[in-house]
C-alpha cells in the first residue's frame, strides 16, 4: 500500500525569512516546529500560507537547502495566489507545512558522470543533489569534474540563484533563450553542444527537472542515446501523501512500476527513472 514517508508530519513552521530571487522568485526559509532529519535531495514539502487569499490545498515545493539549525529553504517562483501568499509571509509568522514527502534521488554510484538539466525553477532540487554527490552523503562521492549542471531559462532573470550554484564548485553551464547569459539557446541544444565539442563523455547519467516539454525532450534524448535518465516531477498534487489519487502518472508496462497502470507522483516519486513512467 503506497503510504507517506514515516518521517512526514502535518504541522506548522515558523517563517525565518523571505528574500527576492531572480525576476519573479523568492527564497523562503522556514523552521518546522518538529525539525526533519537530514533530507535527501529531491524530497519535498507541501506548503500553504494561512493567508485567506491562498488556496486551501497546499502546494508541493522541493527542498532547496537544509541548514544545521533545522531550517529549510525553498526556491519558489511566484506564479499564482498560493505562491504570492507564501512570498508575502513575514518572519515570525507560521505556515502550514506537510512533509518531508516523496522519495528523493536514489543513491547513485560514481560509475558515470552526472549531468543535471534544469529549467528555471526546476533547479530547486539540484542544489542539494550536487552538495550530496560531492559529499557522498547519499550514494557514492562524486568528483566535482564529474558533475555538470546545465541551467536554462528564457532569460537571465529566470536562472534563480545562479551564483550560489556556481559557488558549489562543479561545472555550471547557463543557457538562455535570449542569450542574456551563457549559451544562446535551450538546455537541450547546450547539452548536445557539450557532446559535440567533446566536453562530456558519451555515457552520462541524466537528471532533469523543469517544464514538462523540456523534461520530455531530455528523456527522449536519453532514450535515443541509451542513457539512464531520472526526472523530478512537479506534478499538480491534491494531498502530497497518497490519499487523494490525484497526481496519477501512466507507468510503463515493462518498467519497474509496471505491475499497475498508474503511479502516484507524490508517494511513488516525485523522482522517477524514465524507464518507469510515460512522460
Amino acid at each position, binding site marked *: 500500500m503506497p503510504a507517506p514517508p514515516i*518521517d512526514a508530519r502535518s504541522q506548522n513552521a515558523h517563517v525565518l525569512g523571505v528574500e527576492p530571487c531572480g525576476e519573479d522568485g523568492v527564497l523562503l526559509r522556514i523552521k518546522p516546529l518538529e525539525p526533519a532529519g537530514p533530507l535527501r535531495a529531491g524530497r519535498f514539502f507541501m506548503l500553504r500560507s494561512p493567508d485567506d487569499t491562498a488556496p486551501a490545498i497546499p502546494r508541493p515545493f522541493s527542498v532547496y537547502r537544509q541548514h544545521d539549525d533545522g531550517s529549510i529553504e525553498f526556491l519558489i517562483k511566484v506564479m499564482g495566489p498560493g505562491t504570492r501568499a507564501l512570498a508575502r509571509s513575514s518572519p515570525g509568522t507560521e505556515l502550514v507545512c*506537510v512533509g518531508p514527502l516523496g522519495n528523493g534521488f536514489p543513491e547513485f554510484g560514481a560509475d558515470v558522470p552526472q549531468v543535471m538539466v534544469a529549467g528555471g525553477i526546476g533547479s530547486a532540487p539540484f542544489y542539494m543533489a550536487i552538495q550530496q554527490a560531492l559529499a557522498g552523503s547519499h550514494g557514492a562521492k562524486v568528483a566535482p569534474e564529474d558533475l555538470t549542471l546545465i541551467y536554462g531559462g528564457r532569460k537571465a532573470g529566470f536562472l534563480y540563484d545562479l551564483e550560489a550554484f556556481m559557488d558549489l564548485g562543479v561545472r555550471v553551464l547557463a543557457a538562455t533563450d535570449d542569450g542574456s547569459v551563457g549559451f544562446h539557446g535551450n538546455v537541450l541544444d547546450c547539452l548536445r553542444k557539450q557532446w559535440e565539442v567533446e566536453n562530456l563523455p558519451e555515457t552520462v547519467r541524466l537528471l532533469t527537472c523543469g517544464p514538462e516539454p523540456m523534461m520530455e525532450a531530455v528523456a527522449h534524448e536519453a532514450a535515443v542515446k541509451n542513457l539512464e535518465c531520472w526526472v523530478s516531477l512537479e506534478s*499538480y498534487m491534491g494531498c502530497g501523501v497518497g*490519499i487523494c489519487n490525484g497526481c*496519477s502518472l501512466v507507468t510503463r508496462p515493462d518498467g519497474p512500476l509496471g505491475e499497475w497502470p498508474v503511479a502516484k507522483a507524490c508517494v511513488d516519486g516525485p523522482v522517477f527513472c524514465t524507464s518507469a513512467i510515460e512522460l
Partner: protein
Amino acid sequence: MASMEVDLAGISLRNPILSASGTFGHGVEMQHMVALDELGGLVSKTVTCQPRPGNPAPRIAETKAGFLNSIGLENRGIESYIESVLPEVESAGTVIITNIGGESVADYVAAAEALAGFDVISALEVNLSCPNVGGGRLPFSTDPKRAEEVMRAVSEVTDKPLWAKLSPNVTRIEEIACGAEAGGASAITAVNTLLGLGVDWRTGKPALATVVGGYSGIGMGPVALRCAWQCAQAVDIPVVGCGGIADAEDVLAFLAVGCHAVQVGTASFSDPGMLGRLAAEVEQLLDEAGVKDVQDVVGCMEASK
C-alpha cells in the same frame, strides 16, 4: 469532559468522526501522521470487484471554494484489498467501514459476498453515487427503486450493517434515502460530491480530463447539510453527514440537523493531520457550551424536531 461516544445502527464509535471514502486512502497508511485511535472510524476508498486503473489525468483541480476530482475509483480490486489491505487495517485501532462500488447490481453483490466473512469490517458503505464512473449518470442514486434494488440484493448476501451513500445530484434526496432504507440499509451517508466542471477559458481546456467530475470542499457545505437534514427527516435509520466539513463547528452543525456521525473528506487534503485532532476540538466546543454528551446535539435544530 463531554461524552463523545455514539451508537450508529449497532456499531459503537468512540466519537462521531470518520474519514470519508476516497479522501484518506484505506486509512491505515496514514498511521504515522494521524493518531488513528482518535477517530470514530475509517471508511476505505471504494473497492470494486475488478481492478480499475481510474480516469486519465488531470484528475483533480482546486476551485475558489472547493475541489474537483475525477479519480474514477482507481483501486486494485477486491482480491488485492483482501490480501494486502485487510491484514493491515486490523491494527488501526478504530472501526473499519469498507466502501464498495460497482457498475451493476451483480458487482455490488459480488463485492459484499467477498467481504462477508471478514470480522475486521464492521459495516459496508455501498457507494451508490460515484459521479466518475459510467459518465456521471448515477443510475443507482437517482432512482429510489434502483437504490432499493441494490441495497436489497446486497443485504441478502451479508449480515453486515449496510450504509447507503447517496448523491446530492437529485431533486428529492429523501425519496432515495427511503428507497435505500426499504432495501435494508442500516444507515444513510449523505452525501457524495456534487457534479462540477472547471475550465481555463484562455486555453479552452477543461480542468479535468473527463470534463465533468465531483465537486467537494467547503463550498458544498450548505448543500450537504440540507441533504443530510432532508434524509434525517425522512428515514428512521441513522444518517452520517458528509460534505464540506472542515472544522469542529461544521461537525456539530451536521449533528444538529440530525446526523449521528460525520465523515470528513477534502479537508484532509488541506491538512492531513486534522482528522486526528478534530474529536478533541469538538469535545472542547461541547465543554465550552456546557453540553455533557455529544448525542444531545443530534437533531437539536428546531425545525428538525
